[in-house]
């Protein structure tokens, strides 16, 4: 029981981080990015690849893969998604277009990743056992959790305390109103999309230290991140953290008590409950 709580808690840290990345992309840049999980897989692949070929620590990989992913995602937004944003007459039309375009990107990334590394990416990093309040787990999970929390906290403070963070939040509330008060909406959107991608890739590096991944598993992470974002309420950081905690705990409980093959079904069950009872998110207010 205690084991479930501890490992569920440690898992939820990374989930919360990835969901924050997606939240920036969907809540601010208004792009439903279904290639999010594939960006995560790219981060994981880079980490695996550097570690197995030249023994680069994933923590070092993290430091340079995050800005690299920022640049890549900025380019994606600038050259592939901006035309769609301009073309879209309504938010609905943009959603359909961005969903289809990001599907395309996700398949292209899967195709590339699988041709680089067709098998599993697994490596042993910081596998020392440690004991937390009487439950034994491995050090890599704890390290991943701490780093995820640190990045998440930094993001939270930046969003709430800095001037540019306020601009990002303003765009997430209303693109039109933000434009009226002199915020460069296209620039902030591109920045938020790129930042979201950078955070997702960082999450991928962290996850790869303790979970075995393969090239085609990205969609599972996309789904989990989406479920967390919806459960927490779009644009709600606090809600996303609570939702990630719930998902991490439920998933770990189902995996240990029933069957590891049913974690996705558990996530779906929660998704259905949220859709039926709290579609506006855990702390959201019902739209009128």
């Amino acid at each position, binding site marked *: 029981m205690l084991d479930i709580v501890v490992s569920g808690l440690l898992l939820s840290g990374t989930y919360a981080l990835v969901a924050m990345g997606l939240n920036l992309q969907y809540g601010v840049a208004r792009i*439903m990015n*279904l290639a999010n999980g594939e960006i995560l897989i790219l981060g994981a692949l880079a980490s695996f690849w550097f570690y197995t070929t030249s023994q680069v620590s994933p923590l070092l990989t993290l430091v340079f893969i995050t800005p690299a992913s920022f640049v890549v995602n900025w380019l994606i937004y600038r050259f592939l998604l901006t*035309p*769609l944003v301009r073309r879209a007459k*309504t938010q*609905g*039309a943009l*959603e*359909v*277009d961005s*969903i*289809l*375009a990001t*599907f*395309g*990107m*996700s*398949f*292209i*990334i*899967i*195709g*590339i990743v*699988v*041709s680089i590394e067709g098998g599993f990416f697994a490596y042993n990093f910081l596998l020392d056992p440690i004991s937390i309040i009487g439950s034994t787990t491995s050090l890599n999970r704890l390290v991943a959790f701490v780093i995820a929390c640190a990045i998440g906290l930094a993001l939270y403070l930046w969003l709430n305390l800095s001037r540019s963070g306020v601009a990002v939040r303003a765009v997430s509330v209303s693109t039109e109103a933000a434009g009226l008060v002199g915020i460069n909406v296209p620039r902030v959107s591109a920045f938020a999309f790129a930042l979201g991608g950078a955070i997702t890739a960082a999450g991928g590096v962290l996850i790869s230290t303790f979970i075995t991944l393969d090239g*085609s598993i990205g*969609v*599972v992470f*996309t*789904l989990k991140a*989406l*479920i967390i974002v*919806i459960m927490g309420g779009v644009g709600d950081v606090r809600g996303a953290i609570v939702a990630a905690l719930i998902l991490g705990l439920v998933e770990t409980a189902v995996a240990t008590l029933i*069957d590891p*093959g*049913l974690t*996705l*079904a558990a996530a*779906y069950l929660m*998704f*259905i409950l949220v*859709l*039926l009872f709290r*579609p506006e998110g855990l702390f959201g207010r019902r739209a009128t």
Partner: protein
Amino acid sequence: MKPAGMSELVWAAVLVFVAAFLPWMVNGYWLSIGVTAMMYIALSTSWVMFSGPTHYISLATGAFFGVGGYLVGAGMSDYQQSFWLMAVIAPIVGAILAALIGFATLRLSGVYFVIFTLGLAEMIRNVVSWVQNNFLGSRGLYVLTDFRDQHIYWMLLAVAAVVYLLGWFISRSRIGFALRIIGGDETVARHVGINTATAKVILFTTTGFFAALVGAIIAPRWSYIEPNQVFSPQLSFLVVIMALLGGAGRLWGPLVGVIPFTILWEWVAIQFPNQSTLFLGLCFLLIVYALPHGMVGRIEELRARMRRGA
């Protein structure tokens, strides 16, 4: 009744009649491609019936298709039922499942629906494998019938014709009109008194019914059924691509997309077996950036331009 609508129906009847002769005209290889194409025609036409007017992208086809195929396998192998009985039960189960999913997701915005259907096939596959491993024991199911490719082909052709006819009626009925308004602007639809959720759920249920039926009919082709094989998530995406490539704005749009794409896909699978996912991705990008209204949209655009020029 507008004459244009009637002539469309006459054309469809002629096409079905001609298509029925395919098994006598071609060899086994092309017939097997014909079966695949006919399967996708039925699936993507029923997809367009719902997703065309509403712009809700459904990725649930694979899930319903898998349920249909799996039920036939389980019914025939584990419970010694006849194929025909299972082919009746499967679409009903598919329809019930679709209605439940529609009820949970279609009252909300389209994004929730897409996300929900995205992992649906995978989730059902996980649950089915779990049930099978823990409670049923056996892993594979046998579907042994006397059907040959041409029989499956004719059954699929019949289904495709029925789907088309139904779609034709729906697009001329009150509910079809309601769906187009929903697709145009959902708030407007609600304000003019359309029960948007009910209209969407009814149409989505129809899609689930036909996808499960197609899955059931295809099952004898494999003869050995495994959850990993019938619940292929790729199928849902292929259906979306073919429907959009042809054009989702017209009921006959998918027909234009399916036939060239099936042949192309077959070729890619043989020539570049490892690059098929990459190819799928490129197709999506091609549709979004170059053919937003599909080939049908392009054709109609050209026609309009020629008329203006003449």
